[in-house]
């Protein structure tokens, strides 16, 4: 019979599947297994988790996905959730998770000491683990740094047809605009965003790297990116004709977002989860956490990687990143109105 072979294969794979499943999934995870839902991708978290396991014997299992789906999952699982810790790559989503009552406040002197106040939630529900500056990257061939000053000035007439931006659908841009709303108000921010849109050389790109490549290719002369994308490019091609500019150094400073984490409300191992969080904020872990992706450690005692240090220091916007969450929906609407796609 013709079907016998696939049927046999299916049977074999089914058996293999079921057995391998029971191997891997103990019905009740032992106390020494932490469960993490992470938006930060595997290759950036696994090395640290492995090290933590080697040091403490606590094993860590994790699922990666976008923050939206993970938060929805957490909400629907309710008290049955296996998740102990939620990691995201921006503050807005952590704020949202806290708003939905999915995280718990934790009282930790270690975290208070290691994480600056503006990079954690006011009620201790979540903490930044790395800082991500969103700044101007310009072509060293066609732009002089003296011509640059602020985010607002990217709307000046002289940049007409010379600006590239990433899509407003990306949360990094939503957070940037949200913090601008927080400081400058809705009207002023909307006017600024409109002036950016008027200066666009092309429709917004879907990611920072392509936008930088467009600057190199000459489609536009400057763009806004998270510094680690530039860092990655520089690590690959050290002589890339781009440079970083730190805007708004005379007023509020450079927009900074976080990749951070919070212990879940219904965590089965809250103490262990807190210990992991505390360990991640220590000087030693901080360097590795940030260096893996050319980001900035949040712990002031820890230094960024040499490549990142070479960009120099800058004054950062000290507005609490909570604003990014609180005003995110407002920011999205504002960008829609301004025609920023």
């Amino acid at each position, binding site marked *: 019979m013709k079907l016998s072979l696939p049927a046999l294969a299916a049977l074999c794979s089914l058996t293999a599947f079921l057995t391998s499943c029971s191997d*891997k999934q103990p019905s009740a995870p032992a106390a020494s297994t932490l469960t993490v839902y992470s938006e930060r991708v595997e290759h950036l978290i696994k090395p640290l988790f492995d090290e933590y396991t080697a040091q403490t014997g606590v094993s860590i299992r994790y699922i990666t*996905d976008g923050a939206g*789906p993970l938060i929805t999952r957490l909400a629907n699982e309710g008290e*049955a959730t296996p998740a102990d810790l939620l990691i995201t790559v921006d503050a807005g989503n952590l704020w949202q998770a806290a708003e939905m009552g999915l995280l718990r406040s934790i009282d930790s002197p270690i975290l208070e000491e290691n994480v600056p106040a503006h990079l954690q939630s006011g009620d201790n529900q979540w903490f930044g683990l790395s800082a991500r500056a969103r700044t101007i990257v310009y072509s060293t061939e066609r732009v002089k740094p003296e011509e640059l000053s602020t985010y607002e000035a990217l709307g000046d007439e002289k940049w007409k047809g010379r600006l590239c931006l990433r899509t407003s659908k990306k949360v990094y841009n*939503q957070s940037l605009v949200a913090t601008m709303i927080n400081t400058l108000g809705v009207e002023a921010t909307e006017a600024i965003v409109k002036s950016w849109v008027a200066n666009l050389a092309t429709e917004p790109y879907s990611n920072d790297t392509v936008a930088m*490549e467009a600057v190199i*290719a000459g489609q536009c002369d400057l763009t806004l990116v998270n510094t680690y994308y530039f860092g990655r490019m520089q690590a690959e091609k050290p002589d890339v004709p781009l440079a970083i500019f730190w805007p708004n150094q005379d007023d509020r400073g450079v927009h900074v977002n976080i990749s951070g984490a919070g212990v879940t409300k219904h965590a089965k191992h809250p103490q262990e989860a807190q210990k992991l969080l505390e360990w991640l904020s220590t000087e030693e872990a901080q360097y590795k956490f940030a260096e893996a992706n050319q980001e900035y450690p949040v712990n002031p005692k820890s230094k960024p990687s040499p490549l990142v240090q070479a960009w120099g220091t800058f004054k950062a916007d000290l507005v609490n990143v909570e604003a990014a969450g609180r005003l995110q929906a407002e920011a999205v609407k504002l960008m829609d109105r301004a025609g920023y796609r």
Partner: protein
Amino acid sequence: MIHSRWWQLPIWMMAALVLMPVLVILLSWQSAQVEVWQHLVATGLSRLLSNTLALMLGVGITVTLLGVSLAWLTAVCDFPGRRWFDWALVLPLAMPTYVVAFVALGLMSYSGPVLTAWRDLFGPRAWYPEIRSTPGVILVMSAVLYPYVYMLARSAFLQQGRTLTEAARTLGRGPWASFIQVVLPMARPAIVAGTALALMEALADFGAVAVFNFDTFTTAIYKSWFGFFNLQAAAQLASLLLMFVALALVLEQQARGRGKVHQHSLKCQDRIRLSGLRGLLACIYCLTILLLAFVVPFGQLIIWVSKTGLKALDERFFQLVQHTFLLGMISAVVICLTALAVAFGLRMRPSSWMTNLTRLTALGYALPGSVLAVGIMIAFAFLDRAVLWPLFGNGAAAGQILLGSAAALITAYGIRFFSVGLGPVQSGLERIRPQIQEVAHSLGHSQWQVMRRIYLPLLAPGLMTALILVLVDVMKEMPATLLLRPFGWDTLAVRVYEMTSEGEWQRAALPALTLVLISLVPVIIMVRRSRQ
């Protein structure tokens, strides 16, 4: 047994399964999300709708033209390279849309190699084709989706045989007239079914439209969910999308016509020989499509892999491959068996009620993956809480039973890809003359014997097609896999997501290429078998 009511059971079960997440989505209308709707209407709902409509029309027309013309050439004509194109033209099926999209952007963006060469040739200020545009998105999607039409049209043409065309020709019709007046109408159900599959894929797609920053209905759903943190408004938008799909399904049924084609003898086909220039043109046409839809993206993936090296090929990588294949295989078998049961149910107890119920199951295919996955997740969480916990008696301490299990993920695949499996099984079944069964019964064979000795052998090709189509689709599936996979069950699609979400296209090339390669094997097996 033939007239047993039990035949309805699989239909009811499948419909209930698909309607479960749909119901969850419809429940979102409990409270109106006025604010979000006002905002959407004020800031470009009309653009979303016109973009979506343009995409539907563009993809619909392009895949039909490509699919039918290529199928006609390879199934009915003969020209240099035909035997080879015959199977090679199906290969783009192995390419996930999200992969082709990021490869296309890499190649065709302003900084990419194509436009750089273009500027060297025509000067820096010259007009250039922008891939991030409506025609660009349509072309990229059509390149991936035309094989659906190609495959179904091709087997329809093959099964018609030459007798029909011959009859038309002897009655004085020219080759074109006989094609348009006889061959096409006969193949219409197959062509329409293929186009419908392609359109539903296009409607549900998020990967490609996200890469191109092209605003469609799907992007509005995601904006409401991730931008406004408003899952309810997102679900409401999704239910509108469902309405579009339901409408499309009705249209499809109308467009299919009532024609039924029963199996013809496949023997002695002589093909229309295209010689000289015409043969060359046919060859060039097929080659161009194949190059653009498969060879170029495939080559770009290889180039990227060679740049990034094979560092990532560790033990865990092989685990990804294993998981991908295993999940695909199990789901494919489960879905095909269900499809078989449903198709038989329809045949044994035909009623318009049951037919319509079955048609509803197509809804699962057209919902954006994440939305469907969330609907399933909410339904499963509810089942865990309301049914399974009391059943096992220990409440929340039982933790998750359905949710987070492999069964949940496989069910999700089932809901999403059931119609992919049902199509080939059903059309295989339709081609078996009902008289065969009656004859067998009158000769004293039991139902079981009829099934085993007549149906299964005759259905084997259709089942095989269904199995492979579902296998490939499941292996490519991304959003439901991300959301519902059990711990430790990462697949290649998950790895591709992790890389692309960080904008690391080049590092995504290795898992993407591997995914394409393991999808190629079943696709090639399928096409080779269908030639025998």
